[in-house]
């Protein structure tokens, strides 16, 4: 590394620049587009010099779009609301279900514990439609079609394995002796779980929750199959947008920007834990 020749230094710099341009340009371009009117977007050659407008965002937020043909309703804000509600609720349920289970798997190696843990893990890699298609029928029988409850339950498919395996790792990192010491001091297992295990695994649990939120937010196929327009999150809603008539390109771009901002912000905030989360706890960053 210390013996880099000037030529090598230049080549490395060039390569890195290309990499950064390739991965950053689409985000940058869509961001610009979201402040443009159809006229500037359609201009040839494209230019990055234009007078920015907030009209796209205004249209999305008010839900009213003025077109030549009249006023058009846009459901984007309700999509955004669905995304927030579904992701938050799914992660909350996942934490409530997954954290105690992760603790049990980490601390008590009981009969069948590994089987359950690995079965849950294998769900992460099974084709989601395999479960979703029969579920459409079960949901009809159960009255869960197009309900938040049904969707949140299906979202466990991605959230629960993540929470379980990451949080389990954090519990395993706590020395068993520390918990023993608290038990011997006269505290019940529940008090030990609340006062020792939970606080010590706290940062890991929070990180796992953030990551589960990101994955839930980014999910597309669950809601595509199981939700109608009024329950759809942004991933499905934005796609429906493209085909709706009279929509302006700048508004699609603005919708994308609004849809990805929460996950990008959370990812930057939790980036220290991303590697661990992405590898389900196999690699530490």
């Amino acid at each position, binding site marked *: 590394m210390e013996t880099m020749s000037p030529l090598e230094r230049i080549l490395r710099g060039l390569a890195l620049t290309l990499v950064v341009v390739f991965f950053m340009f689409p985000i940058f371009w869509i961001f610009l587009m979201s402040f443009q009117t159809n006229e500037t977007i359609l201009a040839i050659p494209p230019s990055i010099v234009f007078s920015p407008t907030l009209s796209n965002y205004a249209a999305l937020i008010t839900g009213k779009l003025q077109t030549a043909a009249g006023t058009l309703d846009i459901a984007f804000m309700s999509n955004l609301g669905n995304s927030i509600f579904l992701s938050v609720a799914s992660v909350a349920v996942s934490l409530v279900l997954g954290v105690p289970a992760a603790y049990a798997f980490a601390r008590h190696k009981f009969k069948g514990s590994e089987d359950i843990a690995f079965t849950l893990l294998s769900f992460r890699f099974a084709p989601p439609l395999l479960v979703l298609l029969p579920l459409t029928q079960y949901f009809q029988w159960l009255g869960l079609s197009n309900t938040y409850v049904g969707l949140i339950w299906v979202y466990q498919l991605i959230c629960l394995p993540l929470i379980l395996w990451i949080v389990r790792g954090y519990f395993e*990192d706590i020395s068993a002796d520390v918990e023993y010491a608290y038990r011997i001091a006269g505290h019940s297992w529940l008090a030990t779980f609340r006062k020792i295990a939970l606080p010590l695994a706290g940062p890991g649990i929070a990180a796992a929750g953030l990551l589960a939120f990101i994955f839930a937010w980014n999910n597309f196929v669950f809601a595509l199959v199981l939700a109608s327009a009024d329950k759809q999150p942004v991933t499905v809603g934005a796609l429906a947008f493209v085909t709706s008539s009279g929509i302006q390109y700048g508004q699609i771009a603005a919708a994308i920007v609004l849809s990805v901002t929460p996950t990008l912000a959370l990812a930057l905030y939790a980036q220290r834990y991303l590697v661990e989360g992405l590898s389900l706890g196999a690699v530490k960053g």
Partner: protein
Amino acid sequence: MASTETLKRPASGFRISRKMLPYVLSLPALLVCIGILIPFFTAVVYSFQRYRLSQPWARQFNWGENYINFFTDPAFWNTLKVSLLYAGLTVTLELLLGLGIALLLQRRSTVNNFISIMLLLPLMIAPALAALMWKLMTNPSFGILSYLASLIGLHDFRWASSPDTALLTVVLVDIWVYTPFIMILLLAGLRSLPTQPFEAAALDGVPRSFVFFRITLPMLTPYILTATLFRLLDSIQQFDIIYAMTQGGPGNTLTVFQVEAYLNFFQSTNVGRSAALLIILWAITYTLSNVFIKNWLRLRERARGEA
């Protein structure tokens, strides 16, 4: 001094909960497991039935006919071919690119760390939305990429709407989204390698290509394997990007397993065939995931050991 009399003696009911505690704690997770396994087995049953939503009265077991028909079904072979091609292309290219970028960023420095965090952003964008972004950029009337293509003489380059370039376009989007995944895993792997072998090699003046192929690569293999298998498992069942970009088209250019199964179910309402397709896909991923989990566990233990 506390004496034994003042100690609370547990009620006899408490004894049961002591033994049952781990089961009680993991019961919810177990219930979710069961809740997922029921539709899974239902799908298995469907795959052995002649079952069309449009003809519910004609539903009956046909014992493997759905699977046997695949042998003579060109659409199935197309699905298999496109799925494998897609998975093979994306994973190979992402691995090469991801490894290259990880090597460029290996040295810890402020700039490198900043870039590695920036590069993570595409991975955090929903793949369906990423596809939408690229759709806007490749739009024939205003897409910046279409414009750039015309600058180098590719007038009327159709990107995802032409059967010739549709696969390459979605592969490009997949690369944009998922290369950071491989990059970040390999970067973590590279940075966790012990430094002694490299220092020793540098002292001895060992050529750098030798160091890379004989030290770096072998030591990085567990990470490469895990990252590759992880991607392969996801890529062979890619749905979001392809569906959002082209809905499997143009024609049947991109009818990979899950897209084909989705279209079979909702458009042709052929539930039996759709389920059989998904079962075959599941068999492939199940086999892969067994190999994967073995590697993954080894890495996980190593990570825990270092903690």
